[in-house]
């Protein structure tokens, strides 16, 4: 079992639904985003255009964050998911600097999105997050364990995000990768072997 994703950049319209639904389902604290859609401008006028790169934890096969973590708080599950056990995190941030994808964050525990109080949603959601510990996307591991897709893959309006088992040749992701398209993984030169492929 090797969970992975294929993201079709030709289908991504940069609507940020995946970002919003992740915020909603995981209740990530103020300023913390487990996934982002990065905008890149390419070309020059009059042929300039934007490319949208949905970026989240790549759940690398050789995760630099796990190697850098001095406490074992970041570890890799047998199904290749890279997860953080907040209780073991000392907040040294070595994993944040070791990660080439800028997808980890440390929440300092400071309030919510509204100045002087937490909303009822924030009050419920923030108790799931440990202040002073690093956090990141876990591919909605609790949903995966229930046989569901990660929230972002489920909510994607254009079906640009495909999730599944990379080890299963009949899975949706494996079939997408078998298509005659140019595929790439981000910052492969660092040897991290990400589990998210981009079709360009």
């Amino acid at each position: 079992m090797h969970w992975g994703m294929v993201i079709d950049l030709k289908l991504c319209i940069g609507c940020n639904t995946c970002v919003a639904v992740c915020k909603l389902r995981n209740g990530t604290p103020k300023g913390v985003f487990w996934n982002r859609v990065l905008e890149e401008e390419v070309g020059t006028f009059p042929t300039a255009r934007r490319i949208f790169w949905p970026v989240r934890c790549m759940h690398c096969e050789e995760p630099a964050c796990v190697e850098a973590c001095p406490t074992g708080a970041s570890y890799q599950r047998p199904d290749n998911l890279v997860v953080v056990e907040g209780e073991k995190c000392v907040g040294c941030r070595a994993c944040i600097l070791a990660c080439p994808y800028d997808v980890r964050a440390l929440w300092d525990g400071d309030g919510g999105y509204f100045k002087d109080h937490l909303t009822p949603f924030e009050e419920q959601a923030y108790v799931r997050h440990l202040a002073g510990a690093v956090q990141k996307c876990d591919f909605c591991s609790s949903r995966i364990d229930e046989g569901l897709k990660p929230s972002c893959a489920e909510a994607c309006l254009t079906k640009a995000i495909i999730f599944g088992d990379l080890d299963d040749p009949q899975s949706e992701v494996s079939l997408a990768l078998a298509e005659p398209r140019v595929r790439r993984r981000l910052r492969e030169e660092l040897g991290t072997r990400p589990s998210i492929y981009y079709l360009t």
Partner: protein
Amino acid sequence: MSNATVPRNQFIMGAKFQRDWIEGRGLWLLAAIYLGGVGGGLFITAVLVDWHLGLLVGVGIAAILKGGAHLLFLTHPWKFWRIFTRPQTSWISRGIYFVTLFIIFGLAYYFWGGATLKVISVFFAFCLVIYTGFVLMASKPIAFWNNPLLPILFVSVSLGSGISLAETINIISPQAIANPELLTGAGLWAVSITALLLFVYLVGNFYSSVTAKESLLHLMKGQLAPFFYVGVVLLGMILPLAIFSAAHSGIVPPSALAIAGIAELGGAFILRYLILKVGISAPVA
């Protein structure tokens, strides 16, 4: 560097300055890295010039000041013992072993002496001053740090700082060191080698990658350039070199060595600050 390559908006593709290890609590990490270098460097210097009290001061700086700074840096300091659990992969974890073993064997050598303890304690002092370079070097996305010369540069700077602190203490408290004449020559060598290593390190970064070059340009041409030229080059290298050379030739009074020592210690701190400050991660795509 234009704003387009280092965007403020985290949703725009681009390179990014690291801030985790230099702003807010990160300043405590800077202090810890610096104090570890000074403590280890002073210990090695004390062994070199046969200065018994210097051994204890070196261990004290590493144990109390460096250790304290590390604890202040962590968001969950009471869990620090967990750092002992991952030496197989993590340089931070290896570092806590080096610090601990340095303290144990350093104190053992201070109290009991002996050739074996001397070799072991100097070995761990060396590990103490070099490991922080490996911690930074392990951050592959930051090309300016991911350079094999960085740990060697840190060793050289640390030895220079140890010698400088010993020089300064010797001037403030004469008769403290049995062989103070060794210090001036050693200081001259340490600062010269540091200057050479820094030059090679910077030239290497110019040619290694786009982001390493961006870091370099920020260091030498950006807003931080005055700190580099005045703090590192002038204060940390040219001034100590001039005074050490003059003192070696007997031109200036020995008391000037204290000025050289303090200048070098300041320059070494600014150098580490700048190295942390200009760390830039390459864009993710």
